[in-house]
């Protein structure tokens, strides 16, 4: 039985209560515009949740990546890592929305939906039951459909939401289908039992097990933005309100990986097949197509969207080699954490730019370094971190990812090629990151400085400290990731 003080439940309680209460307050107060009030409440709720996670960690109340439990949820470090990352992203989004939402209606519902989506994001990582996972997944998805289309007057926002919704609904149907097969094969929805059931599966049923895995890959891959399930992603990221893009790119996308690690990877380890090649191929396709498509983009948001597709590819490297290298999952988790901060920061910077200058077209960003120096600096740092330039935090996680691919090279002939593809893509990605930098710093006339939103600056400064600080001294993060990484072996089965 779950303890009532376990982290997921407490987070659920705090955020759920606040998330429900905010719209009620709004109705009770019968006012629309009081953005800052709701933002502060949401912010406080998130901070309290984050604080609770931290408190649990500091008091060693969190088990090292347990992964399985007889319950629907488990309070382990793996979930804790995602909780921290997702709460940070939600904080970014909340703070980043502060200025953005001043101009738009219904802030209460907006923040409430963010909080609800956050619960979903956090709980997916904690789930140890397929039903729980599915429900949490939907709790994450449904509010974000609405959030993406939240700017009703904006056709792009609506179009983005429609596309997102279509894919989201399709992929949740596919996930249910996958769950149904795995349930049918093992007679349980508990992930631990499913996996155990898979390990003792009758050989004639193996294709079905693989079918379910394939459906999970497709279903979760949609959120992760894996090629060929990625096509909605740039459109949606571009059309969505920028803070929400940040939530999508930095948050929900990572949750896809959480789910994938919980189900696909573990399940496949058990199935003990040469399945990882499929993930490897997807990884290479994803990063290559993401990077190549990003190069020609004229729109900053879209470029970053493609870049986040590419990063999904990098993270997938770690999953693909996970059974052969202990570093694989560590690298993936590390990169997920880093990418959450880097991409979150980048999109929040975009939000800041949109809020103050109302442009995202790269040609109109000329001279941004002079107009919005802090935002531009932060953006550049996040871009270089995304490119994996040391001594920024992004470097270390990429290092671990490529390292894991090479590390697995001793048992997996194709694994080094993943690393090669990865580094070449990294180099390629610098082309457009550099391009943005060039636009911001080396072009444009003598523009005057404009006022940058304080909330955005706060996010920027936090992220810069994070990226540079952990870039120079990455040890704590490495330790943390190591602690949170599940060890892939059958001994962990319940």
């Amino acid at each position, binding site marked *: 039985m779950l303890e009532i003080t376990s982290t997921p439940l407490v987070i659920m309680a705090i955020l759920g209560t606040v998330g429900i209460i905010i719209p009620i307050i709004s109705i009770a107060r019968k006012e629309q515009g009081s953005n800052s009030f709701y933002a502060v409440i949401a912010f406080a709720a998130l901070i309290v949740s984050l604080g609770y996670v931290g408190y649990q960690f500091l008091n060693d109340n969190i088990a090292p990546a347990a992964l399985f439990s007889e319950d629907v949820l488990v309070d382990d470090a793996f979930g804790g890592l995602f909780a921290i990352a997702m709460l940070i992203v939600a904080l970014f989004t909340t703070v980043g929305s502060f200025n953005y939402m001043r101009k738009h209606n219904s802030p209460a519902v907006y923040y409430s939906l963010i909080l609800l989506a956050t619960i979903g994001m956090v709980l997916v990582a904690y789930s140890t039951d397929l039903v729980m996972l599915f429900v949490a997944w939907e709790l994450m998805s449904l509010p974000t459909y609405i959030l993406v289309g939240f700017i009703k007057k904006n056709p792009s926002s609506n179009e983005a939401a429609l596309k997102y919704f279509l894919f989201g609904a399709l992929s949740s149907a596919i996930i249910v289908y996958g769950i149904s097969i795995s349930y049918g094969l093992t007679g349980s929805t508990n992930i631990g039992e499913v996996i155990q059931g898979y390990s003792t599966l009758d050989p004639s049923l193996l294709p079905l097990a693989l079918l379910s895995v394939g459906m999970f890959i497709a279903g979760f891959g949609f959120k992760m933005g894996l090629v060929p399930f990625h096509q909605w992603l740039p459109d949606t990221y571009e059309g969505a309100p920028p803070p929400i893009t940040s939530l999508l790119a930095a948050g929900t996308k990572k949750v896809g990986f959480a789910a994938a690690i919980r189900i696909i990877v573990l399940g496949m380890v058990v199935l003990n097949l040469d399945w990882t090649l499929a993930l490897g191929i997807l990884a290479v396709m994803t990063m290559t197509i993401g990077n190549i498509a990003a190069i020609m983009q004229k729109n900053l948001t879209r470029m970053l969207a493609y870049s986040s597709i590419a990063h999904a590819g990098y993270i997938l490297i770690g999953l693909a080699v996970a059974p052969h290298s202990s*570093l694989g999952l560590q690298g993936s988790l590390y990169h997920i954490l880093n990418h959450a901060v880097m991409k979150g920061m980048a999109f929040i910077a975009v939000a800041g730019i949109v809020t103050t200058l109302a442009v995202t077209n790269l040609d109109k960003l000329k001279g941004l370094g002079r107009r919005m120096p802090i935002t531009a600096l932060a953006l550049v740092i996040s871009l*270089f971190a995304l*490119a*994996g*330039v*040391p*001594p920024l935090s992004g*470097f*270390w996680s990429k*290092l*671990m990812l*490529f*390292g894991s691919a*090479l*590390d697995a*090279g001793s048992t997996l002939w194709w694994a*080094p090629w993943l*690393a*090669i593809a990865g*580094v*070449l893509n*990294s*180099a390629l990605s*610098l*082309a457009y990151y*550099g*391009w943005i930098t*060039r636009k911001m*710093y*080396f*072009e444009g*006339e*003598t523009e005057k400085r404009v006022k940058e939103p304080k909330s955005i600056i706060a996010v920027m400064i936090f992220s810069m400290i994070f990226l540079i600080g952990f870039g120079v*001294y*990455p*040890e704590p993060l*490495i*330790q943390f990731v190591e602690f949170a990484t599940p060890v892939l072996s059958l001994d962990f089965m319940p």
Partner: protein
Amino acid sequence: MEYALLQAVVLPLLLAPVAYIIGRKAGPTPAMWFTFAILLYTTILIINAALSGTVEEHYPWTSQFGEFGFLMDGLASPFAIMIYVLSTILVLYSKPYMLHIFHHQFEEEQNINPSASGQTSVIESSALSNYVNTKSGLYFALYLLFAMGMLGTVLATNLIEFFVFFEIMLIPGFFLVALWGAGQRRKIGLMFLFWTHSGAVVLLLGFLMIGFTVGSFDFADINESEIPQDIAMFSAVAIALGLGVKLAVFMFHIWLPYVHGAAPTPISALLSPAMIGIGAYGIFRLIVEFLPATFADLAIWFYIWGLVTMIYGGAMALMQDDIKRLLAYSSISQMGYLLFGIGTISVLGLTGAEMMYVTHAIGKGILFMMAGVIIVKVGTRSISKLGGLAGKMPITAVCAVIGALTIMGIPPTSGFMGEWILFAGALETAIEEGSTLRAVGFGLGLVATVLTMSYLLWMLKRVFFGKTPEHLENVKEGSWYMTAPMMVLAGFSIVLGIYPDIFYKTIIPYMSGVLGV
């Protein structure tokens, strides 16, 4: 001296913001002297440490990737000394040159932005001084970072640390080129970033292969016998390719003429002499020292590759009209010498290769400074528009000739002391192995020295001798800020040419140790 190397690396990093602030508040001259003081102090630390033999420092870092350390041994100390000596004296040189660039760019911007044109000259001049102050602050801050990155690379004791510094020197370099370069500086800045980063990531692949096979990234733990042969070969090739981009060897060289041509001259004078040679340092440290057996297999390819680069770079230098591009191709050719020397796989040859780094640093430093003086004082960099400048700027001309002689390898400049020992090594191996290929390579290498001489003398002839075009009648000698650094280097070249033991005596024992002679 406690923490000498740490100070030498970290002080410039920490004080870079201070340099920026000083530049902004007090203008270029104080910023220059501040930067100069930092670098002078750290250079003295470095030289002091070099004199006391091998110095090692270790600091805790990551558990996964090893510790953060600095090591200055016989291999690293010549590199470290040259890097900081050049950086230090180029600070002085930077001031007049960069002021020239800043004024130029300011005017450009004024022209683009007509709103400023109607103002009075008083306001304009204060705008100009503000502009110059800000820019020079930024320049010196980036300069410090750049120098620090280069030093850190050669002192690193850990593969990852090496890589980190390797990349750190890239970023300020990119900004320096893209902000104050010439021509299509932004495109070229990106090209620089892209090429060298591509090389760096390939290098990283090799590092990771080694690191994971050995289980540690610390230099001290790397032992070739623990690495399976194919992995060692693979990683050595990856490292060589990665460093090859930095070295700008044949096929990977194309970024260099653009970048050296476009970079502001003090930076060209750091890029070319100090930075690209770090590729050679990497090969020494990572392949020659850590993977000796693989190196033995690869040496002949380095040899041939170096040879091709030597000749190709020289031949292309003959075709250049832009003086800085010519020097850039010359650098490519010289990097060929380094690689050639490494390929000789003999103590003499390896010593020669490292000595070539030193002499190339001196010679090319002088020549780039010469180009800078010409750019500032004449305003053109096209050789066909120059001529007869020897009478107008005698000090520059004399220094340029000494620099050219250094590159050509004519005694009593240090170039000869690099070259003869290099070729002695090449010949030694050719005889020992009885290899016709190596012997032919040796001969072609000597031919390449004639080629080197041809393009340099031709350049000198076209720039400094011959008839003086009419538009150059009023050209003056550069200021002391510009000529003094050249004279220092020229003097150093001759001192080293006459008494090469300054570096030989640290390099040779190291190389003997590495090759197990």
